[in-house]
C-alpha cells in the first residue's frame, strides 16, 4: 500500500464513520471532540496505527470585530492535534484536530497509548488544555507551583517587561 492509498483510506474512514464533511487544503481535518477517542481506537485496532506520534495543543484567544462594536467573531478556544503512525512502510501518519472551548476537556488517549501520559501532561502544562480521565495530570516541564501556562497567547503580555524581545 502506498502512502496516498493509506491517506485515501483514512479520509474515507473520517467521512463515513466520523462525520467529517470536508478535508481542508494544507491543514489536518477537524473532528468533533466526541469522536476523538473512538477515532483513535479505530485507527489502532482496525488499521494498525500503533505508534503514538505526537499531540500538539494550541491556544486561540477570542477574536473580536473592532469595526462592528466588538462583536465576537470566534470565541477563545483550544485546538489539539493528534498524530498516529503505522509501523513499517509506508509509515503513514494519520493526523486530525479537535476543537474544545475553554471550559471543555479532551478525552485522554492513555487507555489506548501509554505515551499519552507524558505527552498530554506536557501540553496541559504549557498550553493549559485539560485532558479528561488522565491518570496523573501534573505539570511536566514547569515547577509544580508555577502559575499560568507559558504557551498561551495571553501569557505574561501585561507585565512591565515582557519576557522576550
Amino acid at each position, binding site marked *: 500500500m502506498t502512502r496516498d492509498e493509506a491517506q485515501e483510506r483514512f479520509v474515507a474512514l473520517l467521512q463515513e464513520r466520523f462525520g467529517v464533511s470536508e478535508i481542508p487544503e494544507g491543514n489536518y481535518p477537524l473532528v468533533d471532540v466526541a469522536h476523538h477517542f473512538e477515532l483513535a481506537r479505530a485507527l489502532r485496532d482496525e488499521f494498525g496505527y500503533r505508534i503514538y506520534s505526537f499531540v500538539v495543543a494550541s491556544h486561540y484567544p477570542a477574536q473580536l470585530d473592532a469595526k462592528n462594536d466588538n462583536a465576537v467573531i470566534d470565541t477563545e478556544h483550544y485546538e489539539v492535534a493528534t498524530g498516529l503512525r503505522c509501523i513499517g512502510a509506508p509509515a503513514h501518519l494519520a493526523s486530525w484536530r479537535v476543537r474544545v472551548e475553554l471550559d471543555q476537556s479532551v478525552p485522554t488517549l492513555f487507555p489506548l497509548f501509554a505515551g499519552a501520559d*507524558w505527552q498530554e501532561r506536557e501540553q496541559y502544562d504549557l498550553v493549559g488544555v485539560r485532558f479528561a480521565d488522565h491518570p496523573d495530570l501534573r505539570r*511536566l516541564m514547569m515547577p509544580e507551583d508555577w502559575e499560568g501556562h507559558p504557551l498561551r497567547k495571553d501569557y505574561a503580555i501585561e507585565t512591565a517587561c515582557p519576557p522576550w524581545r
Partner: protein
Amino acid sequence: MHSVTGVDPHLDIESYDPSADLMVLNLGPQHPSTHGVFRVKLYLDGEIIIKAVPYAGYLHRGVEKLCEELTFVQVIPIVDKNDYVSPMMNEQAIAMACEAMLGIEVPPRALYLRTIFAELQRLASHLLWLGTFGMDLGGALGGGASLFMYCFRERETVLGLFEEVTGCRFHYNTHAVGGNRHDITPRFTQDTKATLEVIEKRIDEYVEIFSSNGIYRDRTWGIGVLDGELASSLGITGPLARASGVDHDLRRDAPYHIYGELEVNVFTESAGDCFARTLVRLNEMRESIRIVREIIDSVPEGPILGMKPGKSPGHIKIDAGQGYSCLESPRGELGTYVIGGGNSRGASAYRLKIRSPSLHAASCIPYLFPGHTVSDAVAILGTLDPIMGEVDR
C-alpha cells in the same frame, strides 16, 4: 495499569506492603549518569526499585515559546541547542517542515549534502553514546574512562570534518530553508574517506571489547527489557524500538532527502534489553559509514540553495495552514509541527512544536526501572540515550 505490561507506572505507594522497609532515593538532578539534569525519584524495597517517578524540566528553556517570537530563519540556530549531540538533525527537521509547507524544492546537491551530514552526525552521536555508556557501567569496560576516551577521539575527527565545511564543531547553522549554506570541498571528500577508514577499524575493536567482556554481558543481558508493543504505544522509535523488534525506520519507510534512491539496511533485535540496544547502535554506525561511502563520490554538481537568498530575516513566510514533517534522528522520529500565521504576517510560527524522540524515550523509565536494582537503573538510563536538552526543550 497498562494492558501490555505488568508494571503500573502510577503505583500507589501507600497501598504497597506496609511491612516493607521502603526507602526513597533521588537519582539526580546532578548525577553523571543522568547525562544532563534529570531527576528520577526511586522508591526502593531493600535494593529493588518498586516505583520510579521521573521529573523533567530542569533544562526547560522555552524553545517553543521562543520559536513563536523569532522568524523561521532565526529559529534554525536556536533549535541546534535542543539535541546538542546531533545538531544537524534539528536544523534539518525545521528546514524540512518549512519546505514542505511552502512547497520549496531543494536542489539535488543540497539533498546529498544533507544525507552525508545526517549520517556523519549519526555516527558522531552514537560514538558519544557508546563512550558515555562505557563510563556509566564504570569498571565493566576496562576502567570505564578508557572507552570514553577512545570514542571521543573518534568523534573529534567527525566534528573536525564538520568544522572544515561550516567553521563550527557544534551548532553549525549550516541548513537554510531551501537548501544549505556551506558547500563541501574536494578536501572534505578526501578527509571523510580517510576518517571513515579509521573509524570502521576502531568499531571492530569496540565490538571486541564488548563481546569478550563477561562483566559487560552480565550487566546488560536481560536488563531493562522493553516490550515492542509498549515501545510503539509510548511513541518510542529509532534504535530503542528496533532493539525491541519494531521494524520501523523512516529512512526506509518514508524516505526523505535521497534515502529513496538508496538501499538502507534496518537492523532489528528481538531481545529488547540493554545488550540488544548496544548491538543495534553498533550496526547502525557501520551502516552510516556504508551509506556515506556509497554517495560521497556521486554528489551532483549544481546549486545548494533552491531559492533566492533573502535579505531580511523575515523573508520566509508561512501565513496559514498546519503541517508536520519528520526525519530519523539518531534517537528516532524527530518532527516539527508548524502552525502558520504568527507574527509579522507569518514570518514566525503561530505555534511550533518539536516532537523530540528523547521525551518519548524518557517516558518509558517508569515501566523499565521497577524490578531492577539501582545499579541496573543506571545501565538502563544509559542505553535509553535521552538527551536532556531535547527532553525539556
